C-alpha cells in the first residue's frame, strides 16, 4: 500500500472510507517459528467477489499466512489491511467479528456433539430462560443446510459422520458466520468429485454475493475451475500473483517447485504374482455387504466410489479396526482371523488411515516417536528395549526419502504442515516393510511434486511384490496408478475395471449404479 498513515487517518476521520481496492491484504508479513522461517516478507491481496487460490509445496507457508489473517498467529512483522484499513487481529474471535472466517486444514468438530451444536457453538440461540433453545437451533441448521443444499440431519452426532460429511459441516459452519472473507484450507482433500462440485456451487454463490474467498489446494484442475486469481509461495517466500486464465498447469508447477515435473503418475507395469490377500463375502452389519476380491503380489488394486460407499469401512474391517460380521479373509491362501490391528500387522499388513488427526498422528509427540510406533511391534526391539540409534537412523533415512520438511526428528508433529504430517504417517507404515499395504487417500494434502514422488514409491513397492490396495477420491490418481479398479456404491461392489478399460466415465457409472 502506498497510502501514508496520515492520509489513512484523515480518510477515516472524514468518515468517508472509499471502496478500498482490496477486501483484505497483507504486506511484508514475516513469521518465524523456532528453527523455521515460515513466512519471509510476503504479500497477499484479495479482491472483493473473487476466488483467490493459494498454491505452494508442503510447508511453503500457506496455512501459516492464512492463520495470520484469521487471527490465530500474530505476525512478527508486517501489516494486515481489511478494506484498506490496517487491523491487528488478536484472536480468531476477533477475526470472526471483523468478518473473516476460516475452514482449517484439519477437522475441528466435537465428535460427541450434534451437527447443529457444532455449527452454532458459542452462538447458540437462547430461550427466554437463558437456556439453549435446541428446537430453534435445529431449525436454523435446517435452514442453513437448505440454503447450501446439504442433506444431513442436524441432530446426528458428528462422530457418526464420514470425513467428507464432517467437512461439509465445517463448510456450513464457516458460511453461517456470514463473513466477508472466507478462507478455505484444502477443503476438498477429503471430498469426492460429487461433493467437490457441490462445494464449488456454494463458492460460486458466495462469490456472486461479493464475498472474497481464499482457497488453498494442491489440485491443479480445481484452480482452473474455480479460482479467478492465484498466488504462489515457495519456502516461505511470495513468488507472484496471477490471473488463473493467464497460465498453464506447467507454469504453475514450475513456480511452485522451481523445476519441471515430467511424469505425474510414474506407474511401472510389473509382473503380477500370486494372490496374497483374498477377501470373500465380507460383510459388516449395516455398513457393507458381500465384498469379495483378490489382490496379487505386485498388483495395485484401486478402490473407487462416492462418499458413503463403504470403501474406508472395508479397509478398516480387513485391518481389524472394526471386525467383520461375516466373511473370510485369507492371506497366501490360508484363512486368517483378524480382530485387531495388532493381528493385522502380525500378518504383514499396513494401513494408512483417511483421517490423520483422529486415527493417524500422535500430535503432541515428535516426528521420531510418530514414525517408529508401528514398527516397534516386531523390529528394532530387544528384550523390550528399543534400539534407539538404529531406529533413529531408519527414520532419518525415511524422512529424507519422503523429503519431510522439519527442522529435525525431535520436532513435535503438531508443528509440521499438513502435507508433512501426512508424509510422516506414510513413513510410519513403509518402515514396517509390509506385504499388504492398504492406503486410504494416501496423497491427501500432499503437493504435486511430492505426490509424484510418493506414487513412484508405491510403484516400487509393488515391484518388490507388495500387494497394494489404494482408496482414492482423486480420479486421476485411481486411473493413473491402479492395475485394477474396484468400484463400490452404498456398501456393495458394483464392478471391477482393468487398467486398460478404465475411464473416468466408466468408474463414475459404476459408482452411482
Amino acid at each position, binding site marked *: 500500500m502506498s497510502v501514508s498513515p496520515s492520509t489513512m487517518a484523515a480518510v477515516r476521520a472524514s468518515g468517508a472510507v472509499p471502496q478500498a481496492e482490496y477486501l483484505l491484504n497483507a504486506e511484508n508479513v514475516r513469521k518465524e517459528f523456532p528453527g523455521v522461517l515460515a513466512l519471509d*516478507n510476503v504479500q497477499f491481496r484479495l479482491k472483493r467477489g473473487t476466488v483467490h487460490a493459494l498454491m505452494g509445496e508442503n510447508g511453503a507457508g500457506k496455512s501459516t499466512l492464512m492463520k495470520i489473517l484469521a487471527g490465530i498467529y500474530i505476525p512478527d512483522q508486517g501489516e494486515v489491511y481489511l478494506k484498506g484499513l490496517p487491523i491487528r487481529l488478536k484472536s480468531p474471535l476477533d477475526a470472526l467479528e471483523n468478518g473473516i472466517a476460516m475452514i482449517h486444514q484439519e477437522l475441528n468438530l466435537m465428535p460427541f456433539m450434534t451437527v447443529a451444536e457444532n455449527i452454532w457453538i458459542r452462538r447458540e440461540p437462547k430461550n427466554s430462560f437463558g437456556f439453549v433453545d435446541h428446537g430453534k437451533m435445529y431449525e436454523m441448521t435446517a435452514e442453513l443446510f437448505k440454503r447450501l443444499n446439504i442433506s444431513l440431519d442436524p441432530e446426528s452426532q458428528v462422530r457418526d459422520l464420514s470425513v467428507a460429511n464432517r467437512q461439509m459441516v465445517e463448510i456450513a459452519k464457516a458460511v453461517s458466520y456470514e463473513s466477508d472473507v472466507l478462507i478455505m484450507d484444502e477443503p476438498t482433500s477429503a471430498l469426492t468429485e460429487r461433493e467437490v462440485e457441490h462445494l464449488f456451487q456454494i463458492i460460486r454463490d458466495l462469490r456472486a454475493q461479493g464475498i472474497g474467498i481464499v482457497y488453498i489446494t494442491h489440485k491443479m484442475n480445481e484452480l482452473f475451475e474455480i479460482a479467478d486469481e492465484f498466488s504462489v509461495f515457495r519456502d516461505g517466500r511470495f513468488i507472484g500473483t496471477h490471473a488463473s486464465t493467464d497460465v498453464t498447469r506447467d507454469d504453475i508447477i514450475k513456480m511452485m517447485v522451481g523445476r519441471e515435473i515430467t511424469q505425474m503418475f510414474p506407474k511401472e507395469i510389473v509382473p503380477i504374482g500370486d494372490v496374497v490377500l483374498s477377501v470373500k463375502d465380507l460383510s459388516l452389519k449395516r455398513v457393507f455387504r458381500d465384498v469379495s476380491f483378490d489382490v496379487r503380489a505386485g498388483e495395485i488394486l484401486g478402490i473407487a466410489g462416492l462418499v458413503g460407499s463403504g470403501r474406508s469401512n472395508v479397509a478398516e474391517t480387513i485391518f481389524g479396526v472394526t471386525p467383520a460380521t461375516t466373511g473370510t479373509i485369507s492371506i497366501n491362501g490360508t484363512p486368517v482371523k483378524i480382530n485387531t490391528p495388532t493381528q493385522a500387522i502380525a500378518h504383514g499388513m499396513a494401513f494408512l488411515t483417511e483421517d490423520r488427526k483422529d486415527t493417524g*498422528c*500422535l500430535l503432541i509427540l515428535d516426528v521420531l516417536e510418530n514414525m517408529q510406533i508401528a514398527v516397534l511391534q516386531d523390529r528394532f526391539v530387544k528384550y523390550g528395549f528399543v534400539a534407539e540409534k538404529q531406529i533413529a537412523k531408519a527414520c532419518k533415512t525415511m524422512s529424507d526419502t519422503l523429503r519431510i520438511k522439519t527442522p529435525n526428528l525431535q520436532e513435535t508433529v503438531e508443528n509440521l504442515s499438513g502435507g508433512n504430517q501426512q508424509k510422516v504417517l506414510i513413513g510410519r507404515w513403509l518402515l514396517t516393510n509390509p506385504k499388504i499395504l492398504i492406503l486410504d487417500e494416501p496423497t491427501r494434502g500432499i503437493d504435486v511434486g511430492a505426490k509424484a514422488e510418493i506414487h513412484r514409491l508405491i510403484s516400487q513397492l509393488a515391484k518388490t511384490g507388495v500387494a497394494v490396495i489404494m482408496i482414492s477420491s482423486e480420479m486421476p490418481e485411481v486411473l493413473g496408478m491402479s492395475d485394477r479398479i474396484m468400484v463400490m456404491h452404498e456398501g456393495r461392489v458394483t464392478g471391477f475395471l482393468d487398467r486398460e478399460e478404465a475411464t473416468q466415465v466408466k468408474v463414475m457409472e459404476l459408482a452411482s449404479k
Partner: protein
Amino acid sequence: MTSEPVTAKTTTPTLTPKSRRRLPPEVNILLVLVGIALIFEILGWIFAGQSFLMNFQRLRIIILQVSVIGIIAVGVTQVIITGGVDLSSGSVVGMTAMIAASFAQSSTWARPVYPALTDLPFFIPIGVGLGIGLLAGIVNGWLIAYTKIPPFIATLGMMVSARGVAKWYTKGQPVSGLTDQFNFIGTGIWPVVVFLLVALIFHVALRYTRYGKFTYAIGANAQAARVSGIDIEKHLIKVYAIAGLLAGLAGIVTAARAQTAQAGMGVTYELDAIAAAVIGGTSLTGGVGRITGTVIGAIILGVMISGFTFLRVDAYYQEIIKGVIIVAAVIVDVYRQKKRKV
C-alpha cells in the same frame, strides 16, 4: 499500486541459527524447588532465627517422607501419561500394609489374624504385599480396559473397597509386633534407596523401552495407537498393574517404617502422588510426563510441608495451602496446553 502480475522482490530466507536443543523441562521444576527452598531459608532466618536447609535431621525427614509418596507417584505418573488417573493408591497402601504386616508379626505377639503362624521369613510378607497391590492394580486395569468405564470411576471404586478391606481385615485393630527382618526395610535410609531404585527403573522403562513408547502413544492418541498395532487393553492393564504394585510396595515400606500397620494408613496419599506428578510436569490430558519431574515434584511437596512445620504454620493452613498449590499446578498445565495449541 502495481497491476497484475505482481512479482516479489528477491529476498533470501534468513534462517536464524537458533539452537533447537531446548533445555529439558525438568530444569524449570528444579528451579522452582531451589526457589522454594531458598524462600524457606530466608524466612527461617527472619522468623525462627535459624537455617532451614543446614539441618541434617530435617533433610533426612523430608527425604524419608517423600519416599513413600514418591514410590506411589512413580506408578501414578505412568497412569496419568496414558490419560488416566489412579485414585486408589492411598487405600491400596492401607490394605497392603495391613495384610503384609499380618504375615510379618513375630510369634511373641497375639495375632489378630492367623494366630497359629510362627515367625515367617521377610520375603513372605513382602511377596504377599506386592501380590495384593498387583492384584488391585490388575482389577483397576481390567475394569478400565474392558468395561470402558472411566479410570476416575474404576479407581474410585477400588479406593473405597480397598479401604474397606483394610478395616475389615482385623476389624479395625492395628497389627503390631513385626519381625526385625521385616522392619529393616523401613529403617535408616532404606526407604529412600527403594524409592530411588523404583524411580530409576521406571525412568529407564519409560524412556528406552517399548513399554514406555506405547504408554506415551496411548496418552497422545489412543485411537491412532490402536491402529498402529498397540494392544491398548493389554497395555492399560500393565500400566495399572504397575501402579498397584508400587502402591503395594509403598504400603510395605509404610508399615515397616511405623513397625505397625493401621487401617487408616495412606489416607490421601493418592492425592499427594497425583500432585507430585502434576507439579513435576505430567499433563492430566495424557501423553506428557517424566519420572524425573515427578521425583522433583514429590520433593517440592515434602519441602513445603517441612517448611511450614518449621515455620510453625498451623496444620489447617498447611492443608489449605497444599490445595492451592495443586490447583496452581493444574492451572500451569492447562496454560501450557493452551499455549501449545496456538
